[in-house]
């Protein structure tokens, strides 16, 4: 099963609050988990990524938490700002077999609105 399930579909947070987006996967071969941010009319931009050998990775206000046994990972946006209002996608891919591709499987997206 290649599916990645993302929740919630939409999220409203006050400025300065914490935004939390969750993803769950089934394919235990996945070993790379990036998060993308997408503004309307633009392509997805890589935010932060994690591999399953660590449980947490932090870059600025963005943190990924990873739970390998539960097959879940989440994005935390600390001190959320109106400029963070965008759609966020989690994704996953597996180390490719010989001569095979390493496609990204995306979640359905979370539309985040940060209120001033």
């Amino acid at each position, binding site marked *: 099963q290649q599916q990645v399930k*993302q929740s919630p579909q939409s999220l409203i947070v006050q400025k300065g609050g914490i935004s939390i987006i969750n993803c769950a996967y089934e394919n235990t071969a996945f*070993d*790379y988990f*990036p998060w*993308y941010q997408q503004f309307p*009319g*633009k*392509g*997805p*931009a*890589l935010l932060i*990524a994690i*591999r399953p050998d660590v449980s947490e990775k932090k870059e600025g206000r963005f943190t990924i938490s990873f739970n390998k046994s539960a097959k879940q990972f989440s994005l935390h946006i600390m001190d959320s700002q109106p400029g963070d209002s965008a759609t966020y*996608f989690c*994704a996953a*891919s*597996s*180390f*490719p077999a*010989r*001569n*095979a*591709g*390493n*496609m*990204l*499987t*995306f*979640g*359905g*997206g979370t539309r985040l609105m940060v209120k001033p």
Partner: protein
Amino acid sequence: DAGVTQSPTHLIKTRGQQVTLRCSPISGHKSVSWYQQVLGQGPQFIFQYYEKEERGRGNFPDRFSARQFPNYSSELNVNALLLGDSALYLCASRPRGVSGNTEAFFGQGTRLTVV
């Protein structure tokens, strides 16, 4: 440094027509992938190319085809367009091909509308 560039940015086609979308990867990147993003959904993988060879194909009909050129740029072709092909088509490039999970960088996409 230029990022991934795609052309055209917008396109309107009639059902049954054919369309060609173009992508230039980041300089030095040899792997190009194509994704389809229907409004309100996450991107869906269509193809991956590395060193001019197809290295992966998603669950799309044979009406979809692609190729990669010696300069690593790529084209996506869609024949016999259907209304359901209306979507944002994204190109992503990676520094390497299939030898590991390196970061994928996306272009701004081509918005295709089929009427």
